[in-house]
């Protein structure tokens, strides 16, 4: 009870010294901003690379020909009896993602993409993204470059966009009972296969895709929903190595799907093993560097705070505060500053991303795994520094501090 009271009091008091508080909040905001950018980069990079290392892509072989592979066929007619269903987990796989599409009218081909794994879609690597970011909400859409569509505008009239830019709003015409408005969040370079296709390509999140099908007057059946590709993501741990065995095993298991005259799929695509190891080492190194960097800065920061409060600590100890009580006093300031600083850093980065629309990986950073990871990195890496510094200052006897005028 006593320590809890001390903690709440100390938290309130720690914001009182305005100058010190705002200075440290600013320092921490910059520190965590840098960490967030770093981790966002590595998180995005690693998710793409990790996916490359873990993902096995099965591309529908009949894609773009007059008889595309339907969802129905893919799920029920697997030639070697490997039934793969959307969302189902294959033994040894952590996820199976279907990338579906429908032909909407005669000019539009609408794809579904998994917002958490946008680049598992084999034609849609971040390097193919010309502008903006992947859609993450149901009202966002990714369109191909130089798209020309005839689209119903907000008033219901038709309007032609030769080159719609980021942020352009449109509704998907009259074929939908309850038309929903979409906003262009990103523009991608059309892959070679798409060039050959006369329709315009747009990408919606899986959820928006489902809604579109449900709301459509065109009454799509399972035979009219086609499969572009299936990505199987192997389970196991990349760092510990279990994944690689799974990838090889799954690839071998899936290979029969591409064999025989009437095979539905192309040869499974996956990253060869030597590249995997290199990538893994690189990621591991950057992780170590990132954590070490935040450790150094946050230790420096604990050091500064305890230096500022040295005399106060001496007085508290003379008054009979136990080591833990003094720790609580110092910790509460560090805690308040860290959380406030982190929040500012995060909002700052979010504002930056919003204004520049520059991150292909994570756009809504506030609720992303990047934010969580960064927070954990910042907090975890400051723990050893904090313990180191407070133990050092707590070891100094009050009279020694009083003697230094």
């Amino acid at each position, binding site marked *: *009870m*006593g*320590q809890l*009271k*001390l903690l709440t*009091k*100390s938290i309130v*008091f*720690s914001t*009182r*010294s305005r100058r010190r508080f705002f200075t440290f909040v600013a320092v921490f905001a910059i520190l965590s901003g840098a960490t967030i950018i770093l981790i966002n980069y590595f998180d995005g990079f690693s998710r793409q690379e990790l996916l490359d290392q873990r993902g096995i892509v099965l591309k529908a072989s009949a894609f773009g020909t007059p008889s595309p592979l339907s969802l129905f066929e893919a799920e029920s007619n697997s030639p070697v009896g490997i039934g793969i269903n959307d969302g189902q987990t294959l033994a040894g796989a952590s996820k199976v993602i279907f990338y579906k599409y429908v032909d909407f009218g005669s000019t539009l081909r609408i794809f579904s993409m998994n917002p958490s794994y946008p680049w598992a879609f084999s034609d849609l690597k971040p390097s193919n993204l010309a502008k903006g970011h992947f859609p993450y909400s149901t009202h966002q859409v990714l369109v191909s470059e130089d798209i020309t569509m005839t689209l119903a505008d907000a008033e219901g009239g038709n309007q032609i966009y030769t080159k719609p830019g980021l942020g352009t709003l449109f509704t998907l015409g009259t074929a939908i009972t309850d038309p929903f408005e979409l906003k262009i969040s990103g523009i991608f370079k059309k892959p070679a296969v798409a060039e050959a296709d006369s329709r315009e390509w747009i990408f919606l999140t899986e959820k928006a895709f489902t809604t579109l099908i449900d709301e459509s007057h065109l009454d799509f059946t399972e035979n009219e929903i086609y499969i572009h590709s299936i990505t199987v993501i192997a389970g196991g741990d990349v760092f510990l190595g279990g994944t690689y065995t799974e990838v090889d095993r799954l690839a071998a298991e899936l290979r029969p799907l591409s064999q025989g005259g009437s095979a539905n799929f192309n040869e499974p695509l996956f990253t060869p093993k030597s590249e995997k190891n290199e990538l893994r080492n690189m990621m591991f190194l950057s992780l170590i560097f990132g954590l070490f960097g935040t450790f150094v800065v946050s230790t420096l920061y604990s050091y500064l705070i305890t230096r500022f409060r040295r*005399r*106060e600590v*001496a*007085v*508290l*100890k*003379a*008054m*009979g*505060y*136990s*080591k833990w*009580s003094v720790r*609580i006093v110092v910790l509460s300031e560090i805690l308040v500053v860290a959380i406030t600083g982190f929040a500012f850093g995060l909002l700052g980065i979010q504002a930056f991303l919003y204004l520049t629309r520059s991150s292909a990986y994570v756009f809504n950073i506030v609720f992303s795994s990047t934010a969580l990871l960064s927070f954990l990195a910042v907090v975890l890496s400051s723990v050893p520094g904090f313990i180191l510094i407070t133990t050092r200052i707590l070891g100094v*006897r*009050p*009279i020694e501090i*009083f003697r230094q005028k």
Partner: protein
Amino acid sequence: MSSNTLIEAKNLTKEYIRGRKEVVVAVNDVDLEIPRGKLIMVTGPSGSGKSTLLNVLSGLDKPTEGKIIFSDEDISGWEEERLSKFRQENIGFIFQNWELIRTLTALENIESPLYPLKIKSKEIRTRAISLLKQVGLWDKVDNYPDELSGGEQQRIGIARALVGKPKIIFADEPTGNLDVDNAGSVMRLLKSFTKRDTAILVVSHNEELKKYSDKAFRMSNGRFI
């Protein structure tokens, strides 16, 4: 040791090593008894060992030799955490530079020693308010230390030392940074608290302050003279 004795120091010696080999005997074989409820003074010139004596008696520093008997227990060999708890329960400190915490108001400074204890916030507040009134600063309840004069800060310091109901208060040059008028009122205030059985040990180079004490010792070269 009479039943009225609170602290008894026997053959107390504190040596410092200065530089490489030079041994400074800051306190040299001192015997001292501090009775309950009395204001005891130790005076002496600079460097005579007053602060060292006070630090050793209060458990802030360890004696090189000798015993410090506090309620039948020798505290001289105790380790840090035990001494902390002991200070929390028995001892109050008043410092020359007041050492108030700048981010706490007058009232919160007085309360601060009690925060880690299992005492309800309401009870803490009641005690602090009562002390604030006794030191005559009720109108400065929400002031921060920077908004108080030196004399006022020292009176807050006195209230803070008293809030834990200590058996003894140690004060090293409590009037060292105050003018004559303020020094007098601080000493009178301290003296007034001895009526509640609180012992007070004041250490100062200022011989003038003797008149406020119940008993005074003079120190020179680490010894009482």
